[in-house]
């Protein structure tokens, strides 16, 4: 009797396992590495994609491993379920050969940002991806910290010297270090060195990696670290320590500060990144959309991309993800606090006279991780382990040179364009 029951249960289980799997495959699968935090995923589904004619299955993951493995598997198998890919510029590079040319998509009267559109060709003659949205990294501070601002310092035109001084004053007057830096495993510290510290001190990311100017920059950062909250080595998203009050001044990605601005807009200010001897270095981040060759319904995928670039969808995306539009459009008045606050800071930063934008690494493909590791290792050795700056830079420059040579990536802004692999001097 009992045995029969078990058999019935087992049969039932197998039937359920095989049944119900063929249903609902008509949805366009949007396979993305962006908007992965659950609230953003929810908002993408309910506020952005629901406006499209066909149902869309939006799946976002912050983990690049499964994302890439899945698309590679579909390409290799020659048949797939993924309709549209959403990812950062650098994540498309290794897939370039398998992406469909998007230059025939009819965008109507939408004007795309020309620089970003050009990036989408990935150096080929085809439009491998179309820009989707953009963001950048800014500074945020608790209003209480403004009372301790050094005399003569303008928060919207800070220099690294002033930031160090400010952090020092804060630590002294409040009794504990109040500057925070996302140096945890989930943190985006490498982007700070690539897009902020290096351009601000050397006007370069790769070429002048081991220059005397770079040494000066690292020494300045070491000074800043003296007044940095030691828990920084575990911080991922700076909005959390800002909200708890552990940290009063921080640098991070706009989307990773948004919660602080939205939850308590009157308690926080957003402001541009500081400037160094060679300008106010900052790094715009560009996410794009592409279609793999294995997409089940090419036309539907293309019209989805066209839909995502319509101004109203772009503004809905901005509300959902805190990533800004890549098409020409006016922002409505009633945007969330984080959008207004970061938007102003970004405008101040990019419009600053000494603005020095640098791009996310281009052309590194699978070497992206190794490239980032060079900067992370330099940080860990110089700042955390307290090793000699000169020695570490000389060591790491060798690693960086081999990464550049193996990947063959030419220089990108702010480095001067190069023939062949970007040299490390």
């Amino acid at each position: 009797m009992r045995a029969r029951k078990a058999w019935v249960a087992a049969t039932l289980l197998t039937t359920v396992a095989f049944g119900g799997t063929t249903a609902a495959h008509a949805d366009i699968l949007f396979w993305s590495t962006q908007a992965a935090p659950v609230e953003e995923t929810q908002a993408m589904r309910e506020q952005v994609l629901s406006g499209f004619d066909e149902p869309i299955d939006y799946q976002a993951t912050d983990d690049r491993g499964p994302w890439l493995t899945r698309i590679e598997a579909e390409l290799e198998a020659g048949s797939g379920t993924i309709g549209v890919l959403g990812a950062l510029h650098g994540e498309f590079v290794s897939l370039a050969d398998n992406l469909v040319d998007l230059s025939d998509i009819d965008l109507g009267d939408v004007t795309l940002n020309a620089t970003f559109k050009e990036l989408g060709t990935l150096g080929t003659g085809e439009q491998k991806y179309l820009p989707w949205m953009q963001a950048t990294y800014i500074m945020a501070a608790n209003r209480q910290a403004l009372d301790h601002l050094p005399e003569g310092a303008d928060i919207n035109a800070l220099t690294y010297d002033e930031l160090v001084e400010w952090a020092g004053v804060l630590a002294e007057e409040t009794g504990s270090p109040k500057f925070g830096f996302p140096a945890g495993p989930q943190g985006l510290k490498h982007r700070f060195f690539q897009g902020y510290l290096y351009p601000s001190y050397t006007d370069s990311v790769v070429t002048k990696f081991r220059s005397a100017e770079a040494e000066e920059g690292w020494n300045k950062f070491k000074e800043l670290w003296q007044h940095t909250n030691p828990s920084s080595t575990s911080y991922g998203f700076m909005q959390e320590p800002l909200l708890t009050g552990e940290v009063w001044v921080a640098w991070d990605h706009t989307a990773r500060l948004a919660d602080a601005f939205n939850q308590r807009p009157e308690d926080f200010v957003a402001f541009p990144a500081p400037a160094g001897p060679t300008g106010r270095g900052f790094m715009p981040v560009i996410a794009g959309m592409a279609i793999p060759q294995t997409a089940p319904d090419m036309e539907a995928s293309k019209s989805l991309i066209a839909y995502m670039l319509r101004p109203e969808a772009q503004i809905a995306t901005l509300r959902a993800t805190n990533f800004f539009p890549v098409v020409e459009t006016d922002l409505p008045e009633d945007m969330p606090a984080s959008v207004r606050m970061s938007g102003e800071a970004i405008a101040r930063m990019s419009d600053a006279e000494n603005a020095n934008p640098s791009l996310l690494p281009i052309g590194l493909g699978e070497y992206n991780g190794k490239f980032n590791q060079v900067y992370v290792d330099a940080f860990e050795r110089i700042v955390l382990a307290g090793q000699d700056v000169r020695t570490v830079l000389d060591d790491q420059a060798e690693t960086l040179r081999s990464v550049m040579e193996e990947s063959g990536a030419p220089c990108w802004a702010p480095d001067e364009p190069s023939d062949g692999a970007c040299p490390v001097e």
Partner: protein
Amino acid sequence: MTAVTARETAVPAADIRKRGRFLVAITILILSVWVLAPIYLLAINALSSPAQVNAFPKSLVPGMETESIAFFLGFAGVLRALGNSILVAGITMVLAIGLGAPAGYALSRFDFRGKDAFRIMVLMTRAFPLPLLALPLAVMFIRTGLDDTAFGLALVHTTLALPFAVLITFSLFSGIPVELEEAAWTLGCTRFQAFHKVVLPLVLPGIAASAVFAFVISWNEVFAAAVLTIQNRTLTAFLLQNINVSPMHLKFAGGAMLVLPALIFIFAVRRYLFAMWGIASR
């Protein structure tokens, strides 16, 4: 005279026993706190509002705000993913025991060539990292149509759970004297009947324990689930990759969502687990 000495020595003996009991109590307390404190913190934070989660110092009483939990219940696809998780873990459990227990029995009762090699080889499936295997597996699954099915994923999870199922059941069967079976044979039982009527009731609690283990392995696996399923995501694959980049209050709520079903399951089968350790709980 003798009575006095007896009393004199009895006092320190009782004292030592008392201290021993105290030590045991402390150990139990520490172990319980070790396990329960994180679950408790998870629970109170899951039931607090974002402001309470971020507040300092932390309150040890839940705010009884169900906002974060409600968000997850309303998150498109959570219930379906929960169903998939249970389904995949269930199939894994059945397959792992269905294949693992006979293998364990064979290892403990029969001598055959390559027995030792087999015992080592069965562990080999754990030697390859999944991210390495996932790509060829996914390609094969897409080609054979196993892609995006609960059964296909359960096959992968079974491979992961099988070594444990084999080795646990092997030691269970080895613990049952073969003489018991022989006695049953002499009394007219066939080999199968002897197994069914004599051995099985004795090892059932242990088998239940290794089934729980298989369930938990499947429940916790993320990478294969994230690559091999799209529409039929498991809860872990569905939430875990998104939770680690979500705000604190949602991390807690999502964590609670992931832990709770597994806790309920283990609670439901606890009688078998206790029975395995020889504690009666009726």
